[in-house]
C-alpha cells in the first residue's frame, strides 16, 4: 500500500474511524513483523517486541502528528523497542526460525530468510539496524538516521559496511555449502 494511503488511513483513524484504524494497524503489523524478525529473530522476545510496538502504535495513534509517514513512524518505534528489548534481555535465547504461521512462505523461501537472518545476526547491532532500515525496509538515510538517533551519513555508511560484510558472510556460507575453501577473486 502506498504511503499516501496509510497517511489517509491515519487521518481517518484519528477522526474516530475504527475501521480505518484497524486497517492501518494491520498494514503496520506486517511491517513490524518483518522488522522484528530481521532485528531479533523469532521466539518469545520477538513476540514481546511485536506486542510492545503494536501497543505503542495503538496508543500513540491519537498523538501521531503526521510529520513522517505512518510506516516510518511504526518502523522507528519498532527499532527502538527491539533495541530496548535486546539490551534488557541480553541473555535471551536467539531463535532464527521463521514462524510459518506468521509469515506466508513455503519451506524454501523460509530457509532463505533464515539464512539472511543468521547472516544479519553476525553483524554488530548498529550495522544490522542500519541495513534493515535502509536496505530491507527502504527508509531514506535521513529517516534511518532519525530512527537510529544518528546522522543520515552515519546511517548510510553503516548500511554500506553491513552490505559488504553480508556479501562476505553469504559468499563464505555458499562456499561452505558447496564444499570449496571459500577463496575468491578480488574484484
Amino acid at each position, binding site marked *: 500500500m502506498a504511503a499516501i494511503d496509510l497517511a489517509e488511513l491515519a487521518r481517518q483513524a484519528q477522526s474516530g474511524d*475504527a475501521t480505518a484504524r*484497524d486497517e492501518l*494497524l*494491520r498494514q503496520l*503489523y*506486517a511491517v513490524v*513483523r*518483518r522488522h522484528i*524478525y*530481521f532485528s531479533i529473530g523469532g*521466539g*518469545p522476545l520477538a*513476540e*514481546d517486541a511485536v*506486542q*510492545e510496538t*503494536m*501497543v505503542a502504535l*495503538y*496508543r500513540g495513534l491519537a498523538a501521531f502528528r503526521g510529520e513522517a509517514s505512518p510506516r516510518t513512524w511504526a518502523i522507528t518505534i519498532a527499532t527502538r523497542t527491539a533495541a530496548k528489548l535486546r539490551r*534488557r*534481555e541480553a*541473555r*535471551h535465547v536467539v531463535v532464527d526460525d521463521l*514462524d510459518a*504461521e*506468521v*509469515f*506466508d*512462505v513455503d519451506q524454501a*523461501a523460509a530457509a*532463505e*530468510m533464515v*539464512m*539472511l537472518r543468521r547472516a544479519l545476526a553476525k553483524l554488530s547491532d548498529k550495522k544490522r539496524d542500519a541495513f534493515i532500515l535502509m*536496505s*530491507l*525496509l*527502504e527508509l531514506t538515510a535521513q529517516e534511518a538516521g532519525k530512527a537510529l538517533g544518528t546522522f543520515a551519513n552515519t546511517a548510510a555508511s553503516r548500511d554500506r559496511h553491513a*552490505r559488504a560484510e*553480508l*556479501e562476505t558472510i*553469504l*559468499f563464505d556460507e*555458499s562456499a561452505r555449502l558447496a564444499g570449496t575453501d571459500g577463496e575468491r577473486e578480488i574484484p
Partner: protein
Amino acid sequence: MSRLDDLITRARQLPVNEAGAQRYVAELARWARHDEPRRSRVPWFAGGFALAAAAAVIALLLLRPDRAAPEASALRIGERVAIIAEPNTRYRVLAAETDRTELFVERGTITARLWPGAAPHRLALRAEGVEAVATGTVYALQVDDHGASVHVHEGKVAVTRGSEHAQVAAGASWPAGAVRRDRRAADQLLALATPPAIALAPITHDAAPGEEPSPIDAPAADAAAPHAHAQAPPDAPPALSLKDRWRQARLLRGQGNFDTAITECIAIADAKDATWSPIALLEAARIELGPRASPERAIALADRFETEWPSHQLAPEARELRCRALRQLGRADECKPRR
C-alpha cells in the same frame, strides 16, 4: 544480481499472514487498554474499603441459596469452531486444522458449534470408544460415570461407537434417553453471530463441598487457571509432542489467543520436561505480565519457576520478570537478589 540483492528483494516482499494480522489487531484493541503499567499506590484506607466491599459481595454470593454455576466462556478453535468446556472438564484438542477440528473428552462436557463455511469442515468430539461428527451444528459430548452421551441442539450429528452408527437430529440425544443436565452452553453458543474473537479458556470452577477435586493438581500459581486443561488422557490417540505443543502455544500467542496460550504453556510446564517445561512456564509468565496485564499471576508463575527450576539457565530471566512485575505493582522494594 548478487545473492545478497536477491535475498533483499525477497525479504522486502516477505508476506505476513493476513488472517493472523487481522486477528492480532482485533485483539489489540481489547488488551492494549488493559496493558497500562500499574505504578500508583492506592492509599491504605481505599484498599481497605475495596477489600471490605469485595468480601461483602463474595459473602452475598456464597450465602445466596440458589446461586447458579458461573457461566463458562466460549473458546474459539481455528476459524469456524467454538467450544464451551464446563467446569472440571478434561479434554484435549487433537487437531485444529482448516478442514477439521478434533477434541478428545476424557471427563466432563464439551459443547461445540461449527459455523458453516465455503469449504467442508469436520468437527469431531471423541470420548473413549465414541466419536460424534458434524459438519455444521451445535452439539455436546458429555462424559460422566455412565459413559459418553451426545446431545444435539442444532443440525445433525453422526455418532459412532465401534461398529454401531447413529444419526442424531436436533433435540435428540444419544444413546436414547440420555439426560442433558444443562443446555445453557448451547444457548450461549447459539447466541453468537460469529466465532468469538477472543479465545477464552473456561473460567474458574465453583466447586461444591465434597465434590471431586480438580483433575489437575495445580500448584498455587495456577489456582485461578482454567480447570479444563489440555491434558492427554491415558487412552487418548497419539498426542502431540511437547515441542509441537510449545510451537502451538507460540502460535496461539502470536494470534493473540493469550488465554489459550497460557493454558497450553501451563500444561507443558506440568509435564515437568527438562527442556520444554521451564521455557513454557516462563512464557506463561511473560504473557501474564504483558498482554494479560496481570503482574500478580506473573509473580506467582515466576515463583513457581524458582521452586521447580532454580538452577535453570532461564532462572535469571524469571527473576528479572518477577522484578518487573513487582515494579508494576509499586513493590520494587521486594525485588531482592535471590541466591
